[in-house]
């Protein structure tokens, strides 16, 4: 089961995790990205490529399902403006055993960082700065190329 959603609404975790557990999994791994309020950031704004984004996330989910034996993959990404402490992204994976679930979860967030058309802008009061990609993100994605 693949579930992908790109939505301006807040991400709710409890139902998402319960749905993954209900797939008969022995292990469910998750990663949640949260807006950090440090460096004076008052809000984060997420722009995306409407039309391409959903396909890109489905392609990632399918790649994970092909690479590991998974019962379910959920990828949720919020778009629009959000404040410190709010969730930006949620990855959830369900598998019979922990290793598949954990590895697939790490794979999906690493690959999402480089393979999905989102752009992040930090707001500090009235001034906004587009976030530069981190070179560590490209390296993290590359370690899954094997």
């Amino acid at each position: 089961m693949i579930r992908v959603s790109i939505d301006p609404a807040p991400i709710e975790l409890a139902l998402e995790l319960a749905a993954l557990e209900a797939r008969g999994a022995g292990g469910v791994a998750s990663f949640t990205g949260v807006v950090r309020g440090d460096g004076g950031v008052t809000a984060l704004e997420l722009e995306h490529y409407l039309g391409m984004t959903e396909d890109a996330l489905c392609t990632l989910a399918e790649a994970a399902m092909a690479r590991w034996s998974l019962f379910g993959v959920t990828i949720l990404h919020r778009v629009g403006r959000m404040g410190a402490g709010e969730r930006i992204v949620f990855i959830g994976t369900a598998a019979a055993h922990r290793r598949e679930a954990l590895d697939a979860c790490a794979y999906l967030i690493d690959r999402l960082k480089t393979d999905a058309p989102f752009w992040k802008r930090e707001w500090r009061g009235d001034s906004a700065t587009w976030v530069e990609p981190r070179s560590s993100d490209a390296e993290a994605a590359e370690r899954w190329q094997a």
Partner: protein
Amino acid sequence: MDLLYFAWVREAVGVGHETVDPPEAVRDVADLVRWLATRSPGHAAALADPARLRAAIDQRFVPLDAPLGDAREVALFPPVTGG
């Protein structure tokens, strides 16, 4: 050909979407970037440094030397920063 711009590329160009009809000499994405840069000061500013640009053809990421072929939709944008 539909063009889409995102993030600071969109801001510098001044629009997120435009339709263009590039001349035949424009064969790959890099050609397109050079040709577009001549359309306005905003385009010139946005597209001055191709090393900072990434591209998609018909909603698939491509390198800048990818041939345009029968592309209907070309998007230009900075490296992605989601997640």
